[in-house]
């Protein structure tokens, strides 16, 4: 299939000749895919946080560091005596560190057992009526020996609304970028077809079907799509860990890493890239293949 190979090779050469257009196609499609991937990562992680923190309707109450275990356990009665509190579950320091360990992984906590345990005693408090959350938290803060009340639940709520806002925004931007990608790819392919109009006119005059003429140009569009998909996966792979680590220092949590979802994402990206590439080229091809002979050549 050397003529066929010839056209595909020419297609590659043209990708290079039309550097500017090719780069524009790649740039826009990569932006589109990276943004999609980021939105997916954000949504997955925020919903994890919301699930684990916001869902169990319990609030953490941390006690002063200097309380003994006995004093700490006794504070439970005071907490339960407050209005709107159903239950106050004592959490031993060791249990607390164990729970964190399970969430965050071993390494960080290697030296934090026994006397080196930096955590205070705490209670998991369950409220009856969550609409009175703020009021009840204030009451808890009024109890002597209470150091702080965790605000994970509020963070989760804020995150959830922020993430749904960002997701909606991203969807629109992704849609716009996808349309721009289609447009740019179809123009890139149109330029290639123009560069090959002579071969195309000969192919048609010797009886090549449009499907046959089309293949090399579709291949070209698909290459743009696949390269974009690969580059996007690479970019997300390189960037996501850094972003997650810096977020982790603000809000500690066992985040879903990009490597955990890399294969389904890569698969979806390839499919999307191939689709956009093929569609983009198909648009321009079917338009130019309506012409014949001299009309193609513009003579």
């Amino acid at each position, binding site marked *: 299939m050397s003529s066929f190979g010839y056209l595909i090779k020419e297609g590659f050469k043209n990708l290079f000749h039309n550097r500017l257009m090719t780069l524009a196609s790649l740039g826009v499609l990569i932006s589109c895919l990276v943004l999609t991937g980021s939105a997916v990562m954000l949504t997955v992680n925020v919903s994890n946080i919301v699930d684990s923190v916001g869902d169990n309707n319990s609030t953490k109450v941390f006690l002063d560091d200097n309380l003994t275990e006995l004093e700490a356990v006794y504070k439970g009665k005071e907490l339960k005596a407050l209005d709107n509190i159903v239950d106050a579950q004592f959490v031993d320091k060791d249990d607390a560190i164990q729970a964190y360990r399970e969430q965050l992984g071993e390494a960080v906590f290697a030296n934090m057992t026994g006397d080196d345990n930096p955590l205070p005693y705490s209670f998991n408090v369950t409220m009856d009526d969550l609409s009175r959350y703020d009021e009840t938290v204030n009451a808890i803060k009024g109890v002597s020996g209470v150091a702080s009340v965790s605000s994970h639940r509020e963070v989760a709520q804020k995150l959830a609304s922020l993430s749904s806002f960002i997701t909606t925004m991203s969807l629109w931007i992704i849609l716009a970028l996808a349309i721009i990608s289609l447009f740019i790819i179809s123009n890139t392919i149109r330029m290639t077809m123009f560069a090959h109009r002579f071969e195309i006119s000969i192919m048609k005059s*010797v009886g090549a079907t449009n499907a046959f003429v089309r293949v090399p140009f579709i291949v070209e569009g698909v290459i743009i799509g696949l390269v974009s998909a690969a580059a996007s996966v690479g970019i997300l792979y390189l960037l996501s860990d850094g972003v997650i680590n810096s977020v982790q220092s603000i809000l500690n949590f066992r985040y879903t890493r990009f490597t955990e979802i890399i294969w389904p994402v890569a698969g979806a990206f390839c499919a999307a890239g191939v689709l956009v590439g093929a569609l983009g080229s198909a648009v321009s091809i079917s338009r130019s293949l309506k012409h014949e002979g001299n009309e193609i050549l513009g003579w």
Partner: protein
Amino acid sequence: MKGITMIEFKNVSKVYDSNGVHALDKVSINIQKGEFVFIVGSSGAGKSTFLKLIMREEQPTSGTIVVNGMHLEKMPRRKVPYLRRTMGIVFQDFRLISKMTVYENVAFAMRCVGKKNDVIKKRVPYILELVGLGDKAKDHPSELSGGEQQRVSLARALVNNPALIIADEPTGNIDPEMSYEIIQLLSEINKRGTTVLVVTHEHELVKSFGKRVITIDDGRVVSDSDDERYVAI
């Protein structure tokens, strides 16, 4: 003796939409299988239009066209490639791909219709030998004379074993001796059973071969050496 019809035009008119030019006006022509026909006429007479209608590069404004048993005026676009596979087309300007060798240019026509490589490897050298270019297979078109380039173009037209060869001024870009050779070659091919249609300006050439000549002027057939209706003129 009545043969089998290869090309039949019945009252064919062609008006180009873009400029309203009446290129052909109620043309009726019948060409049998195995004929060799020259089409002559002044510039702008409608000769190329006549050929474009046969290869369905253009569609008639009115009238009916049958080529090799196929009705062109109602032929859907997707069937056109299969019509073209029954004909070989030769252009005045050769239309060879400069980056390909002679061999590749001819093989290209076979690849375009899905022929297998081993078939191509046997057929292309045979055809190149037939047109007298057996030793030029590895050359590029730019290394050949005009006459040789036109023979490559002819080889490409022949390689898929068409029933009909259409040549629009095939000798327009080459010198007279070479022109004679090209027509000679077409005449050889015709003797093997292929119908040949040649548009040309060169009256001397036409005379020396003594074949059927159809003259078109201003979109009309004004004489046809084989048609008794025109003999009087």
